[in-house]
């Protein structure tokens, strides 16, 4: 029975139309969206009640024998979920499966496979503190009821916001997994069908023979039986052939028409449906009239000869395992993908968010992002498409081509157009109640905001248990562009509750043509308190299953349900003025400027920290992303840093995800730690060598810097430190050779810009190995043992912030970020230099002020730096590998400690 479901408003959107169009603002693709912060709580102050330690992926199945059961988790169970009751959770997430078309009376016409699209919903189990992105899919199994094995993949997290933010990426990634599994499954299923058909044919032949024989004999009764049997076998043959045809032509059909979606919404008995799709698409998949139910275990079919393996009682049989259902290759692929998804989404939502923001921004800085950015930020996760929920102004990159059969819709139009009704089929036992629960919840209590949130968040939820919420669906996440959405929403058929759907079914409106081939299945929310009619009245544009929404932090729609077990996490935000600076974490009453990182030349100012319970370091979390070169580097390098998952005051379980990032998460954690380490080393280097700026200058103007020493560890440490300042030669080459003992060749100078060199490699007792002397013109040499530096003198100004001795950074990571920001300024200038037209055609009458400025005001050494960066940018832009060594004839000086 369903108690009052939890309804949690899960997003809120600022009305961005309020933003003043300032001509000087950044272009849309470069501006940073406000963090979808919701008001009263910071993400890390929220406690989590979940009793699992980190996010995990759960694959569970609705077994026809035992009901919902978990199959596997990624990472493996013991590591992931602790005391979390997977069985219980499986039950919950499986119970909202809309598409389970299980039983029906026998005797229908030919079989029809349901090529059901996956459904994607967000569910919450407030009591467990678990939230999940749930991806339902079905695999085919000849021996299963209705030939389907409903499965569901769930990304379970204790952070609801994370799920919601990452919905789209999760959806994309899980779709790939699902498609992988389904492809493998179709393959196996087709094989199975073929085998079965062969058996049946054989049986038919045997039967015919027997009938023939018995014709000559006497007894009529057995003959009649045989006749029936034969007819049955023949019928099966027909059916299986049809199935085989369907399953084999699936892919081509999908490929041919990306909009095609064989959608079978109804599982009611005897609902003969006029398959519009099939009609429209030339009747590929079978007869026009068909019943999509299959006689199942209640009416056992004829027991055939042993060779035909249709068993009389399927409950006797062991159900196929996933490995058997799915072709081995695809199964492995899917598992790998799951693992990679788990890795990808590991960590805190803020971290993921900022990282994605950062990647988005960097992606827009195609010309320059290779210079100082971590290549992993730019290259990895190619498969992970970034679309941050609630990210208005950041242009979403085009979606990666999903598996071809997936044919994901790309345009907004297609999202919007795939609007439809989905009836929910629930467990038979509770169907009545649940039907009544089918309804739409809308922001009933935010009617005052209706004008503003044109198409405000609709939070829909279905509860089949007592605290399952459907927090959102993919549809709602994708259709964030409210205006368009409103139009379409209005064109759509009126919202219907489940009961209405049933009526609709009776009226013959059963199938819906979907222009979107995937994932527009929505689950209706159930709220007894709000009837669809009410909803429509109060919220004309809000459509039940559509949940259009704007994600801003400005507006939050919350539902106060009687039985509210979930606190509304991001709810009822104060309405925050949209033009309030770059920070989004605004809560006027208790913010105060906590940290100001304001070196003279650095645009990094900021920030507001919360007065309550956060230490000042938290401000680093709040640094407006727009001001940072690489916001994802906010993430601290170790646990002692200010970053915590939710809060330090939270219960132990709430600290969950963050610590787990460290040991396992090689990519992010590793990067994070590496950055911290590098930053610390750099700080140490700056303190150790007062002449550090000259070495930095060498690196930044493209002069190879050799760290010469006899002790490998010391040399490597310095190389690490100096790597902070080294621009990458190209995206695929970083030009660092941390330790070498072989004499340098000329080509090495082209490839390596920072070299750790073993002094002992040359058996000379002179100070300088011969090769270094030979190429001394091109080299700056930092001698670790003698603490000397031989390089050109730097007397410009641009680099000073980098090595400012008064920069009292304590943390390596902070310094790393700071260096990045200074470098980003250099890069910006270099970019300007590269692409300012007037600069390169100096004979033009009107020289830009910038050009004049460059010629007159910038110091010679600074020009060198900018020119070098500019050359790299040019080469990168022209896609020429940097195969030239640029150098200059300048005097070297020797600095001694």
């Amino acid at each position, binding site marked *: 029975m369903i108690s009052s479901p939890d309804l949690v408003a899960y997003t809120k959107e600022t009305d961005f139309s309020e933003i003043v169009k300032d001509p000087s603002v950044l272009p849309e693709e470069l501006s940073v969206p406000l963090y979808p912060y919701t008001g009263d709580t910071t993400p890390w102050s929220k406690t989590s009640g979940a009793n699992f330690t980190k996010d995990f992926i759960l694959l569970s199945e609705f077994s026809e024998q035992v009901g919902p059961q978990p199959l596997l988790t990624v990472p493996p169970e013991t590591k992931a979920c602790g005391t979390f009751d997977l069985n219980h959770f499986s039950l919950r997430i499986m119970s909202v499966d809309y598409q389970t078309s299980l039983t029906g009376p026998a005797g229908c016409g030919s079989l029809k496979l349901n090529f059901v699209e996956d459904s994607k919903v967000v569910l919450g189990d407030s009591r467990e503190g678990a939230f999940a992105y749930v991806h339902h899919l079905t695999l085919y199994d000849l021996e299963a009821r209705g030939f389907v094995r409903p499965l569901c993949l769930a990304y379970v997290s204790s952070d609801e916001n994370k799920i919601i933010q990452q919905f789209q990426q999760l959806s994309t990634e899980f779709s790939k997994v699902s498609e992988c599994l389904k492809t493998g499954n179709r393959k196996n299923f087709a094989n199975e069908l073929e085998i079965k058909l062969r058996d049946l044919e054989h049986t038919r032949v045997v039967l015919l023979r027997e009938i023939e024989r018995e014709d000559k004999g006497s007894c009529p009764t057995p003959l009649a039986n045989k006749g029936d049997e034969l007819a049955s076998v023949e019928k099966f043959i027909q059916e299986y052939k049809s199935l085989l045809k369907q399953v084999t032509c699936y892919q081509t059909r999908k490929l041919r028409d990306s909009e095609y979606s064989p959608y079978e919404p109804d599982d009611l008995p005897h609902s003969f449906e006029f398959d519009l799709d099939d009609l429209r698409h030339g009747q590929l998949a079978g007869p026009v009239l068909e019943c999509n139910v299959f006689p199942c275990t209640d009416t056992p079919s004829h027991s055939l000869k042993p060779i035909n393996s249709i068993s009389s009682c399927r409950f006797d049989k062991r159900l196929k395992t996933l490995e058997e259902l799915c072709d081995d290759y695809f199964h492995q692929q899917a598992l790998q993908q799951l693992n990679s998804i788990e890795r990808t989404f590991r960590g805190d939502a803020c971290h993921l968010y900022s990282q994605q923001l950062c990647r988005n921004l960097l992606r827009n800085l195609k010309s320059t992002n290779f210079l100082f950015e971590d290549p992993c930020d730019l290259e990895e996760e190619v498969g992970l498409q970034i679309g941050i929920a609630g990210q208005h102004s950041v242009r979403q990159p085009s979606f990666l081509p999903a598996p071809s059969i997936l044919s994901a819709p790309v345009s907004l139009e297609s999202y919007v157009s795939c609007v439809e009704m989905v009836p929910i089929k629930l467990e038979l036992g509770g169907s009545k109640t649940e039907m009544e629960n089918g309804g739409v919840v809308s922001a009933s209590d935010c009617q005052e905001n209706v004008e503003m949130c044109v198409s405000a968040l609709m939070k829909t939820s279905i509860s089949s248990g007592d605290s399952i919420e459907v927090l959102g669906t993919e549809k709602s996440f994708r259709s964030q562009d409210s205006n368009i959405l409103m139009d379409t929403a209005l064109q759509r058929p009126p919202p219907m509750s489940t009961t209405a759907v049933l009526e609709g079914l009776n009226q013959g409106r059963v199938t819906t043509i979907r222009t979107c081939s995937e994932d527009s299945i929505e689950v209706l929310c159930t709220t007894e308190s709000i009837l669809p009619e009410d909803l429509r009245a109060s919220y004309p544009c809000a459509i039940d299953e559509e949940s259009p929404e704007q994600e801003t932090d400005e507006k939050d729609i919350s539902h106060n349900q009687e039985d509210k077990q979930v606190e509304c996490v991001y709810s009822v935000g104060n309405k925050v003025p949209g033009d309030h600076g770059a920070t989004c974490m605004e809560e006027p009453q208790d913010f105060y400027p906590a940290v100001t990182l304001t070196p003279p030349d650095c645009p990094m100012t900021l920030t507001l920290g919360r007065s309550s319970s956060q230490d000042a370091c938290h401000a680093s979390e709040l640094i407006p992303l727009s001001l940072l070169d690489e916001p994802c580097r906010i993430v601290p390098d170790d646990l002692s840093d200010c970053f915590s998952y939710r809060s330090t005051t939270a219960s132990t379980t709430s600290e969950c995800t963050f610590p787990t990032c460290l040991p396992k998460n090689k990519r992010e954690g590793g990067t994070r730690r590496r950055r911290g380490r590098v930053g610390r080393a750099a700080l140490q280097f700056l303190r150790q060598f007062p002449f550090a700026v000259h070495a930095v200058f060498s690196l930044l103007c493209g002069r190879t810097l050799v760290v010469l020493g006899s002790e490998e560890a010391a040399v490597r440490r310095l190389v690490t430190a100096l790597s902070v300042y080294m621009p990458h030669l190209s995206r695929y080459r970083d030009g660092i050779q941390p330790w070498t003992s072989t004499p340098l*060749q*000329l*080509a090495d100078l*082209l490839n390596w810009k920072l070299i750790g060199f073993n002094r002992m490699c040359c058996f000379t007792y002179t100070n300088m190995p011969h*090769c270094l002397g*030979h*190429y001394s*013109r091109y080299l700056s040499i930092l001698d670790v043992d003698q603490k000397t530096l031989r390089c050109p003198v730097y007397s410009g100004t641009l680099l000073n912030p980098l090595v400012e001795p008064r920069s009292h950074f304590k943390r390596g990571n902070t310094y790393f970020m700071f260096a990045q920001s200074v470098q980003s300024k250099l890069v910006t200038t270099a970019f300007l230099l*590269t*692409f300012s*037209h007037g*600069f*390169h055609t100096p004979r033009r009458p009107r020289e830009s002020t910038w050009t004049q400025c460059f010629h007159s005001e910038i110091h010679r050494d600074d020009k060198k730096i900018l*020119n070098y960066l*500019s*050359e790299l940018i*040019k*080469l990168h*832009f*022209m896609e020429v590998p940097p*195969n*030239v*060594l*640029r*150098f*200059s*004839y*300048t*005097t*070297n000086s020797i600095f001694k400690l």
Partner: protein
Amino acid sequence: MLRWILGGREAQGTVESAALFIGEEQPKNCFTEMQVLKGHFDIVRFLVQIDDLRFASAGDDGLVLIWNVETGDHLIELRGHTQQITAMISYTFIRGGNAHTALITASSDRTLSLWDPDSGNRVQNISDLQSPVKCLLVLVRLDVWLSGGNELCVWNRDFELQCKTVHHSDAGISAMVELPKNFIAAAMDKEIVIFKLNLSGSDIAVMAMRHLADHQDTIHSLIHVNDGLFASGSHIGELIIWDSVDWTIQAYEHILWEEPARDGQSEFKLNHQKPIERSIQHMSSDGEYIVAAVGSGLYVYNVLMKSVVAYRRIAHDSNVLHTVLQQDGCLMSCSEDGSVRMWELQDLPLPAEPASSGFFGMFGTFGRSSKQTGPPAKKIPEVPGLRSLELIGDLIGHSGAVQMFLSFKEKGLVTCSTDHLLIVWKDGEFQSQLRSLAVFQKLQENQEL
């Protein structure tokens, strides 16, 4: 006297070495960008320009590689020779109204090949030569080409042997220059042999006209100076300017450096010292000046004035292998020490002072009998117009001897070396501008501008 001379020498040595240390600031050196071209597996000895963009390199690995000087791209590899390449020359001929440039290569495997640098095809090949060819000469006017080894062979465009001389000594022909009226001068050991090509109809005959035996030692270098003169240089520093028409000696210089100062008096000492190398390895001329690479020094001679213009006894740390006199008065030399140096002829601020030190060459005309006249130290200041050779830049990159270089004007300078590498040196500023132009062009193409 001797003490004075020796003291002078030492003083001069210090002056020179100080001057050679150019320092790290080289404002006149525009080569601020280099590109390393890899492809050879052995010493690269020859560079031949094909057109404005392309050049060929060849060396001891028997490979001929065609490169694009702008991009540094390795265009085509010409494979066929099994042994080191001993001579390479470009051969431009008119076919079908278009000028084609082909490459002729000669190798120690006693083959001669004609290559099409566009397709990489080996168009012609002659493999059964009696002796390896050491030098090649194309006579554009006659549309024939000559190969010099132990004998002189004349070939037409289709690689058909027209005629050849009788077998010469084992030394063979090491260099050839074309003289007016179908005469050819060929250097054979200590002699210069004048050959005459007799054209009667389509037949060509070759015959030796005269042997000029004025050199005391092996002739290493034989160059064309201008229409009326050619020059030869020998192993012991004899530089002779010849008249192209009547083959008489126009000038004779014996570049001794300071050796005469020790004559007789320090004979013993000299034998145990490392002898100063004064072999004339290479010469080049722009018609007015001759630059001779004498040992590790450079010697600039004005053939019109018949006087020395400038010299530097130690221009490199090791033997100079190749020199080029450029139009702008700039001089380049490369050496076994792995560097390329750029020199500029500058007027001496105080004419007497540097000239008083160190140069003990003999100046004279018409015959070597005049070479021992008078104390040289007195004579030098009398030389009018003596200038100094100032180092304005050097290119350091090769780790082995730089065998040769080839200038593409503003496009750059290619050097080849014993270290198997070629380096293209470019003007960084100019290249940067080119890249900017390319960037804007691409922007324009993409309509992003």
